[in-house]
């Protein structure tokens, strides 16, 4: 059974990481040996900081500090990171899925694209040549195999990055992933974090709480359209962040030495429950939402039910989050220390109220311009 091969617990994931790291140590030729063990890697970097910049041990040409590789650049967060990085003057290379016309918009902005399939590790190394920092924003799309992308591909990427002498690896994880390993995705994220720590590279792990952008499609638009909303009756609270702010923080983390080898949680100024978000949308949109409550119990039951069949195990994994919904989890963190590390301040960050206010004022203006009528949507029923 497939599920058995997954890292069932983080410890397993970590040990897996260790064995791979050990294997790498022995198998790799010495000239590629940038960070065989964490201790050695750090020491060599200390001297690198002193002057002779980041070169391979064999003595290649120095890598420009402003060269950046963004993995998953077409995603919600990835594209904001690319925009921000380009604006700050980085040379941005993007790893994108092999397509006939891969991600035109990235190249229109002035980034370069490299086609590579993350699930095919042999395609990776060329993309890492001449790169100083890697920002990994990739994650499996809902229809994709999460295990292949969020674990196997990550391991391959990190191994490649370490072997290619990448100076900093930025990885996006999920808040509280160490506490909720029963959710497969969080378990994988945690395992990757641990794997990264022993990789020998300088790393920064950014744990995310939640983005504001999905709230638009999830709540704001349905409220405007008076579509039924699906909500749960849980008390989960999330401190949402605008992806642009996340991108800002990410590049601050890349820039600052203080952020090296740290696990930082990025949280918004305030945490909201789903109910509060809907209330906010109702207030700003001047409409009432029809909320269809789904009891958490039903979700849990569905999960338990889908677990029985192999064909629905993917669905079951996806529903695993129901378990922690029931526990009333809070995705929030104290940001004082993080802001200090990143050299930022809280007033640079957009609050959810500001964000939604701006959104509603724009969208309502636009709707009025097109004459109010939007479209029919209930064509299924």
């Amino acid at each position: 059974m497939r599920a058995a091969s997954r890292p069932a617990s983080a410890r397993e994931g970590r040990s897996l990481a260790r064995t791979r790291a050990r294997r790498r140590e022995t198998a790799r030729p010495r000239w590629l040996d940038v960070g065989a063990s964490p201790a050695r890697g750090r020491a060599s970097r200390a001297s690198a900081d002193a002057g002779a910049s980041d070169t391979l041990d064999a003595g290649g040409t120095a890598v420009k500090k402003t060269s950046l590789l963004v993995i998953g650049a077409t995603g919600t967060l990835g594209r904001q990171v690319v925009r921000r990085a380009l604006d700050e003057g980085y040379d941005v290379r993007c790893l994108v899925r092999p397509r006939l016309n891969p991600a035109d918009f990235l190249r229109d902005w002035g980034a370069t694209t490299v086609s590579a399939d993350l699930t095919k590790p042999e395609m990776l190394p060329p993309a890492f040549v001449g790169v100083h920092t890697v920002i990994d924003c990739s994650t499996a799309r809902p229809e994709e195999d999460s295990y292949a992308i969020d674990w196997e591909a990550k391991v391959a990427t990190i191994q490649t990055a370490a072997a290619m002498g990448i100076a900093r690896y930025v990885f996006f994880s999920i808040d509280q992933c160490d506490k909720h390993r029963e959710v497969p995705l969080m378990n994988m994220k945690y395992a990757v974090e641990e794997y990264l720590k022993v990789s020998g590279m300088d790393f920064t792990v950014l744990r995310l709480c939640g983005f504001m952008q999905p709230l638009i499609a999830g709540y704001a638009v349905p409220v405007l359209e008076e579509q039924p909303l699906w909500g749960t009756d849980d008390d989960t609270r999330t401190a949402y962040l605008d992806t642009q702010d996340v991108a800002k923080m990410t590049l601050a983390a890349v820039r600052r030495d203080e952020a090296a080898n740290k696990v930082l949680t990025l949280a918004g100024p305030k945490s909201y429950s789903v109910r509060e978000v809907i209330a906010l949308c109702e207030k700003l949109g001047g409409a009432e939402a029809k909320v269809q409550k789904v009891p958490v119990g039903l979700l849990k039951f569905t999960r338990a039910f889908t677990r029985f069949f192999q064909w629905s195990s993917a669905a079951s994994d996806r529903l695993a989050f129901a378990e922690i919904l029931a526990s009333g989890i809070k995705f929030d963190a104290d940001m004082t220390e993080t802001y200090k590390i990143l050299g930022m301040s809280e007033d640079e960050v957009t609050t959810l109220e500001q964000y939604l206010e701006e959104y509603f004022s724009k969208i309502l203006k636009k709707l009025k311009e097109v004459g109010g009528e939007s479209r029919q949507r209930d064509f299924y029923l």
Partner: protein
Amino acid sequence: MPLARCDVRASVVVASTRATARTTRSRVDKAATARRTRPSTTTTTTTTRPTRARASAREDEDGGDDDTSTREDAALTKEMVDAMRARKQRRGRGKTPTPTSLEDVNPVNLGRKSRAAFDNVFKQFTRLTSVQKTTRTADGEGLDEVYGAELLSGSVVGEFETPNAKFTTVMVTGATGRIGRVLIRKLLLRGYTVKALVRKEEDVEKLPTAVRVVVGDVGDKDAIKKAMVGVTKVIYCASANSSITSDLFNVETQGVKNVVSCMQDYYHMLAARREGRSPKSKVMLTAFKHPTAYEAWQVDEMDVGNESDSRWAAAAEMQRVNFDPLYPEDEDKPFEFATFNGFVVARTGKAEASADVEDLQAEVDYATKEGLLFRLKGDGKRYSVVLTQDDGSKFRFSFNTTGGWQVIRMPFHKFVNEGETTYGEDGDDILDLRRISRIGLRFDARKNQRDVSMSDVMSGSNNRFDLTLEYVKAIPKGEEPDVILVSCFGAGLEDGDEKDRILKAKRDGERVLRNSGVGYTIVRPGELVEEAGGAKALIFDQTERINTPISCADVADVCVRAMHDEQARNRSFDVGYEYESEQAEYELITSVKSRAGANYLTPALEVLEKNT
């Protein structure tokens, strides 16, 4: 079928904002699957007209809804509610019973529909429990086209977009250079149309796909002319890649000249089409090669000292002031210049020649002008240009001559009142540009006493003067800079011959630009470093005191902001990082602490001097 037409229009409109178009396209492959299951029912567009057309086709009575509501941003919240209410009503009325047809009971269709319905429900269901919620899931695709990808994806916060960007085409020279590369990306991100002039064919590959590239050198006027079509702003960050004198001259000086003159030519051409004057070129007031110039320009009678004193009267008799064409030695050739020469009594003597503005070659509204421009050759002495208002009050701008040919730029705001200064009373000190009646040149012996040696005084040579004039032009006024030149003040260069040569070429280029009449901004960055921009505070100054480096990205950012900044027009400034020392041992000139968000350039430049 009307539907097809809708779609075409939608794609045209979406394509106008490039980023949006791409975003939508990148989603198409996913959306396509979804669309297959619901053929042709998706009548979703971003455009105004198709939607209206459809709305009116289905329901006619809700026509004049747009007119009832006002278009004011201030009362937006109220409008929101109105809009919502209007839409609610419409939806209530808009539901027409769909006639049942054979298609509806087609089992294949039914199956498809039920499958889609189940899919939808299950999607909603799983979305509830997904850890990362992306916009792609569930209703993402359908909504995209209605609200526009950028609105939906939530990237509405216009941190990057500049409202002017849509109507602005920027030409960048030196696009592959250190600053140019970043600059181009910044412009593209903000939605500008970017044209780039690159030296080599293979450089085209290095530039983003959205850039319109013209291959050619800044020394190649034909290439520039070709590239200039449609250009509204130029950012000149090309610099020579060697320090050979000819290279330096070609790029730093002649290149600037070529670009500026091509820009002016292009705007002349545009202006000629509508029989107007180009706002980017100077207006010739007098060219002294025309005989008519000497009808306008006359030597003025000057009162010398105390007339009742017979000694002074005798001295005044001695004065000789000429304003004549300067005939070349070869008598067959026509004259090209005027000469203003003679001698005056020592110490207090004055000589003046002036012209009535109505007699000049062009009648000009001086309120739309920035200043005057003279080309002349002096004898090393100090002269003044005097503007006389119709009430007789005079305003003076003094300048030194070098003995060689000079172009002197005289911004109106630098003219000072000659009469008694009346501080506190309103307006008397300020030159009223609409009331200028005469433009004159003056030699004042008193002004020249300080600089001369004793022997000059004894020999009487300090009351002799000789000035050769070629032309007088008026410099147009404008809102924003047209050309932004990235120059340098020598930071980061080793002292020596090479530095001197480079600086000379740069200075010459700056001078060409300053005297051209286009609105300019000259940015002189400190030593350039390759690092992330936007992180450190900047310091702006005009006296070459800055010794801190600056990142290429920050220079590019300053250029981008300067394009639409009124304060940036006709200013030159140095820019570098703010000093990071703890003790404030330096005088803070203009620094900008917070780089976050808002415009930092305007307040920084406000305090700096104009027309520099």
